[in-house]
């Protein structure tokens, strides 16, 4: 089996995972106690109104029928109506996903970008002050709740120092760039609106730090421990004996091997960030999908719950797929030989 076949097969294997997830979350969302229809219609709603909306949403059908209808709709881009927004859940998610994606991708990018040098420095300076400093930073990053970090950042950088914007994706009076990807950083660059780019970037800064601190800490500690392991290996001793520069040995040869195990964590972190960005999105009034998902849960808006869960599931599957792809790049031994 070639490497390409392997990747195709991995992609095909993802389909039953998503399908299984959809069955599970569809059933769970339907059987949890509560009456979202009555909630959506308000307290004065008559039984006639409640029955009409139930029928309109197909909730008077048996569960297997409801699932079949839902699945049929999904294929056609109709993910069911949100009881809270009265919209097709698909369009609700499409409207909000770019904001969450932008936040998640930028967070992951900077978390990994910073974790690499910090991890390498800590690993190559075991038990020295650099290592202790990274340990304390990692402990802080992992143990501090995201929403707490977010509020502290707002107090320091917005209220006290007045350096950064408080909330949202853009400042008052700054119009979003023409929509191409709906990622403001990308779209503003495409449109050549550098002012908007800077404004969007400053709005991203605090949410990114609040969201990414734990991921940074995790990846940094993993790289650190793997770098320590690598240091004892023969190829490193040989390279040093040849007199190769330390930077080359550490950042090219050792890091490539050390990063392989961290890659799994990075892949999982993407899916995790996608689904868990809600606390940061709420504090920074970030109009993303995670905040939408939380509201959906609170209002038992079950089509929206299913939709968001599926998207997060796809995020996990895609991230793991990309990780598989990168494994092969970083470590040729994991590539499968042609059968």
């Amino acid at each position, binding site marked *: 089996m070639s490497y390409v076949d392997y990747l195709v097969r991995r992609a095909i294997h993802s389909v039953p995972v998503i399908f299984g997830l959809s069955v599970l979350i569809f059933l769970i969302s339907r059987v949890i106690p509560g009456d979202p229809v009555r909630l959506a219609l308000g307290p004065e709603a008559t039984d006639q109104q409640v029955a009409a909306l139930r029928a309109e949403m197909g909730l008077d059908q048996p569960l297997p029928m409801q699932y079949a209808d839902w699945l049929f709709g999904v294929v056609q881009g109709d993910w069911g109506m949100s009881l809270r927004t009265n919209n097709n859940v698909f369009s609700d998610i499409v409207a909000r996903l770019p904001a969450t994606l932008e936040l998640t991708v930028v967070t992951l990018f900077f978390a990994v970008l910073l974790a690499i040098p910090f991890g390498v420095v800590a690993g190559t300076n075991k038990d020295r002050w650099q290592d202790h400093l990274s340990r304390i930073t990692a402990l802080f990053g992992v143990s501090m709740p995201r929403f707490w970090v977010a509020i502290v950042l707002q107090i320091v950088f917005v209220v006290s120092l007045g350096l950064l914007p408080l909330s949202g994706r853009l400042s*008052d009076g700054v119009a979003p760039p023409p929509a191409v990807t709906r990622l403001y950083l990308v779209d503003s660059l495409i449109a050549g*609106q550098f002012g908007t780019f800077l404004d969007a970037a400053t709005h991203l800064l605090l949410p990114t730090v609040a969201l990414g601190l734990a991921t940074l800490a995790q990846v940094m500690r993993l790289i650190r421990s793997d770098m320590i392991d690598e240091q004892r290996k023969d190829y490193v001793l040989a390279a040093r004996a040849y007199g190769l520069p330390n930077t080359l040995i550490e950042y090219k040869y050792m890091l490539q091997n050390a990063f392989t195990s961290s890659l799994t964590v990075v892949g999982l972190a993407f899916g995790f960030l996608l689904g868990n960005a809600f606390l940061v999105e709420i504090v920074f009034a970030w109009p993303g999908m995670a905040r939408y998902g939380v509201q959906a849960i609170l209002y038992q808006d079950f089509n929206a719950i299913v939709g968001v869960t599926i998207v997060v599931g796809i995020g996990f599957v895609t991230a793991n797929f990309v990780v598989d792809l990168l494994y092969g790049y970083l470590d040729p031994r994991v590539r499968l030989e042609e059968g």
Partner: protein
Amino acid sequence: MPTGNIERRKLLKLIGAGATSVALAGCQGAQQTETTDESSGSDSTTTDQTSDGGSGGGSNDFHFIAGQVFGTLDPAEQVDYTQGLAAQNLYDELITVDAETLQPTAHIAESWDTEDEGQTWVFTLRDDVTFSDGTPLTADDVAYSLTRMLELQRGYSSFWLDYLDPSNITVRDEQTVAFEFNQAYGPALATFVQFYIVNSTVVQENEQDGDYGNTYLQSNSAGSGAYVLDSWEQGNSIEATAYEDYWKGWSEDSFDTFRSTVITEESTIKTTMQQGEGDMTDQYMGTQAYAEMDSYSNVRVPEVPQLQLFHFPLNCQKAPTDDINVRKAIAYAFDYDSAVNDIIGGGGVAAGPVPREMAGHNDDLVPMEQDLDRAKEFLDRADYSVEEINEIGLEHVVVAGTELQRQMGLLNQAGLNELGIDLEINPLQWARLTDRATSAESTAHMTNIFHTAKMPSPDSHTYLMYHPSSFGSYISQSWYSTDEIAATLEEARQTSDLQSRLEKYEEAQALIVEGMPSVYIANPPYRIGINENVEGWQYRGVMSFDWDVHSMTRSGEGRAE
């Protein structure tokens, strides 16, 4: 190396090719955009501070901080406060609420009359009202708008569904419309404060598959309101621009644009107000948040009596609260002063189900006070012993996640513990709570409920709580009525004369309180955060009506910071 594998260099080439494609696509996009943006001549499209629309942020821009999303912009569907906020500013209601008397008063309808002993209501409309497209608002629009509500069966259509058939809506002339109810319907006038009028021509032109223009109205406004919708980013913000020819006219300091952003986190809302980035908040934050905002130099927090009841409905169809003596014991064991002064932080102890500031409140009713001796007396008279009550287990449901709700539960628990009664406090999500309220068996023994007036009439705090036809909603969790109460409430609804009707409601309140179906705790105060440079705000009793941006003006240069 096997030939089937992708070489690292090959992979890099593929990535490079992909990146180049994206860059090329980007260049193309940039060219297109440059053409589009020539008129603005700006790289960061900043709007000026006129009424030309676009994103706000200017000194004449009103920025409301909403704690929840706007679920719909169709005024026929609105039921909650953000939906009400949108309707209040984009559309006009047939009848409005007078800020001084909190009673229904003329708005689009400049006068009205009843015929057939209150069965038919005839409204005469103003002749100077135009929709935002410049066409005049006529009786046809009113008739269509109400028919539309009855057909869609959403929002407050429940006020009329049982009483009015669309075929009985008659246009008598361009300015006169008549609604013939199937019986005399006393609260009709009050209910029409929740009836917003749409431009029938525009909406009918944009109907899709018999949706009465519902889809169209999610992204467009078609009203005669003070503001015209510019954009709605669902879940995040709504922006609207002043309608220049609004029939009530504009003053120099009126707001040119109206904008609302959804911020749900209290600390962010407070900081937004403190930084001078917001003009107004909603009323649903914790007591402490308002106290903190009041300490900011640029924010004021008015506190006015509110048409709201906070109470614990006692399930009268479930043991042991089916015993009136148990209910009275529970009511006398509760510490009302602590609830009002320490937990709610203001307002007054409630006297019966109708808020004390509402016309039609029975002033002969006396607020409850904690009296443990009387509580023990009633408990001694009850059919259930303390042991039996504890064996059955008393459940008090509170809405999960709110400190005030939890503290109310604990206060109740402390009072009942004095009587030797154990109380289980059960925090539930709102959706679960409303579901449990649909049957007497599943309704808890007592539940924390805030009940706010949706119309300026005691009907919502009596009929909707204690008439058997209203059972099954979270509002009516006492499951309590008697033939006499039901008959009195029905008579009230059928009485067209206002004074006589209010007397009926007062009579009903006395009958209701006799049965002690609720622990009536408080009429909480109304508090919102307002930037110091906003003037003209007035509490108007009905949800969202005080957020009529047209009635407010900016004093000073921009927001106070």
